[in-house]
């Protein structure tokens, strides 16, 4: 069948608009303005306390956001997924819906809320805004995993004499690990790479790593900007590898699904 040739235009498109651009990030990161090979861009990052601080601060904010989202989101996902609470499908849609509203509008809405309540903008607003922006990304994958879970496993554990606490720690929690890991990834990744929204939530007082990347690219420092992007990409790659491995290990040992 010659219809396989139909994938050729898209293959070329992907090559030009996905593969080549990514190669360009690497190429720019390891070259100077004249195009000669250099590690200078990475050295510059290492020697630049402000850049390092922003980097670490962004990871910190991303971690706090991720933890808060997990603590707030897990119970919600659990309640939504369990038949005993009789929640409707609409409820699930309501939780996922904010994911689809323009992130700037959501951020402006947060600023508006803080203005309305006469609360100061700053670190508190930043964390609130991040949690508000990314909570649905935590709830959705956990909900999906919990929903697919075999309910008879819970009943079996109960029949075998496990108390509710035991049922949760020995059955429900281990089985929801894949969802938790993809939730962590889905919250951590956009939080650590976001730009622009931190400035809006803190009246330009706090800068995150994404903004550092954007500013450098904007100011014509393409090579340095590319190096910073590559550092961010590596951080995210490590995170996703880690969570993939955990996921695989879970799937193997879980075995039930």
């Amino acid at each position, binding site marked *: 069948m010659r219809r396989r040739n139909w994938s050729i*235009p898209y293959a070329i498109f992907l090559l030009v608009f996905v593969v080549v651009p990514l190669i360009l990030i690497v190429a720019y990161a390891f070259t100077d303005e004249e195009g000669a090979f250099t590690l200078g861009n990475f050295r510059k990052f290492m020697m630049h306390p402000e850049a390092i601080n922003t980097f670490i601060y962004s990871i910190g904010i991303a971690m706090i956001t991720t933890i808060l989202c997990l603590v707030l989101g897990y119970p*919600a996902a659990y309640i939504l997924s369990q038949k005993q609470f009789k929640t409707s499908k609409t409820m699930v849609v309501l939780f996922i819906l904010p994911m689809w509203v323009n992130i700037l509008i959501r951020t402006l809405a947060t600023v*508006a809320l803080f203005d309305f309540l006469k609360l100061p903008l700053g670190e508190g607003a930043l964390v609130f805004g991040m949690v508000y922006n990314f909570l649905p990304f935590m709830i959705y994958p956990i909900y999906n995993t919990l929903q697919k879970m075999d309910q008879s496993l819970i009943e079996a554990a109960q029949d075998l004499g496990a108390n509710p606490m035991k049922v949760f720690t020995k059955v429900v929690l281990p089985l929801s690990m894949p969802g938790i890991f993809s939730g962590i990834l889905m919250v951590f990744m956009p939080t650590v790479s976001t730009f622009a929204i931190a400035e809006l939530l803190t009246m330009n007082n706090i800068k995150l790593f994404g903004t550092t990347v954007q500013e450098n690219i904007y100011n014509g420092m393409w090579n340095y900007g590319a190096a910073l992007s590559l550092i961010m990409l590596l951080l995210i790659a490590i995170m996703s590898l880690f969570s993939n491995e955990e996921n695989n290990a879970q799937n193997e040992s879980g075995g039930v699904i």
Partner: protein
Amino acid sequence: MMKNLLAKGYLWLLLALLYSPILIIMIFSFTEAKVLGNWTGFSFDLYSSLFSGGMHHSLTNALINTFVIALIAASVSTMLGSIAAIGIYNLKSRTRATMNFVNNIPIMNPDIITGVSLFLLFVSFGISQGFTTVVLAHISFCTPYVVLSVMPRLKKMNPNIYEAALDLGATPFQALRKVILPEILPGMISGFILAFTLSIDDFAVTIFTIGNEGLETLSTYIYADARKGGLTPELRPLSTIIFVTVLVLLIVINRRAEKQKQEK
């Protein structure tokens, strides 16, 4: 009973947290006060001034740009993605796996990385940035989603029907139009809606590919406006309209998905 009440209460509390910001914007879109939080009586003034253009001509322009870009990007993505899905479906398994892997990259990549990488692509080849580059960028991150929504329809299809059409004397083109197209159409429509929403929503990729020749989309307009410190009051009715539009689109997508599930 108590437990159930507590659980429901928690959900509603969380929903209140998630929706209070957007609700505030919605409520204050119906009053004309310049400063958000001042209620100066109910009015549709902001809505009418949003649509009359005039003073906020640039906002109207940004809105039109956003929709035109989304329409072009979603249409091209749907065409490209559907043709690609048919091609990928017929590939040998190893090539297919490679294609699927590369197809997933734009979905997995953080927006800023996609933005930076496309920016570098355009500047490296000396392409001046503007309308065309934004459209190309949007096509590049929308098409993978179209492929993903068309593919399940192809997998579900009985391959013998296509062969049967050919045996009965249909030309390959006729067989495609009469057999394959009706089968994948629902996937194409979902893909189109998804691509359209993604394009309207995008900020990070747009800002890296829009150049500096004065072209604005809604996202970049809001960003520029917010950075100046004063938010255009007309953004309140606009956000409200967008929120309601997205809500309706999502319900439509959901209904379609539910229906497809039932058909199975």
